[in-house]
């Protein structure tokens, strides 16, 4: 069945360091993935997405890597800041019934230490 999961539930890094958050997915037919950030008491906030015809995509301080061979996604955050502390979810997209359905992973809590 389809599932999206994360390797580590928590991650602590020092402010200014780079962080890498990992995600595994099981549906080899998936072709679109999104990373969301969720701060306490708020809804998921879009960070970056990637389609399966790419293996890397860069945004501002963030990079997503996609390895279709091993069905693995990662989110790299460069020069982490206190505001990066949040739970990060990867999500796998499917079109069902004419609309999009996101399957979220469990989430990784990123803590930035001063």
């Amino acid at each position, binding site marked *: 069945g389809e599932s999206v999961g994360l390797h580590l539930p928590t991650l602590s890094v020092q402010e200014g360091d780079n962080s890498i958050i990992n995600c595994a997915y099981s549906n080899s037919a998936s072709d679109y993935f999104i990373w969301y950030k969720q701060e306490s008491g708020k*809804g998921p906030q879009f960070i970056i997405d990637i389609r399966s015809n790419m293996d890397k995509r860069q945004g501002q301080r963030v990079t997503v890597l996609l390895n279709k061979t091993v069905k693995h996604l990662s989110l790299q955050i460069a020069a982490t800041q206190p505001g990066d502390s949040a739970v990060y979810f990867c999500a796998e997209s499917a079109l069902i019934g*004419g*609309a*999009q*359905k*996101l399957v979220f992973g469990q989430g990784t809590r990123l803590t930035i230490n001063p």
Partner: protein
Amino acid sequence: EPEVTQTPSHQVTQMGQEVILRCVPISNHLYFYWYRQILGQKVEFLVSFYNNEISEKSEIFDDQFSVERPDGSNFTLKIRSTKLEDSAMYFCASGNRAKKEKLFFGSGTQLSVL
């Protein structure tokens, strides 16, 4: 930047009571969604809605749940007879196309069933 708004932010109800959660999607969006997140768990898909009808629903979305777009701006989720296990954060999301693109999420309604 346009955003999805949800009201109320918190809702406390007694078991067996009806609740209506309200959402105002982004104005030019055509696809609407409800997701929920039980405390400490991942975000789960409930239902997608397009052209005034449900496109897809999950197993969670049983006969006690219904959605409606009563006018041109609101999108509601009704739970007819709440159960303790309905306690969760409910997120509304919207998108402007069926194709795989990012969805925009609201800040959520925290529903507590006592």
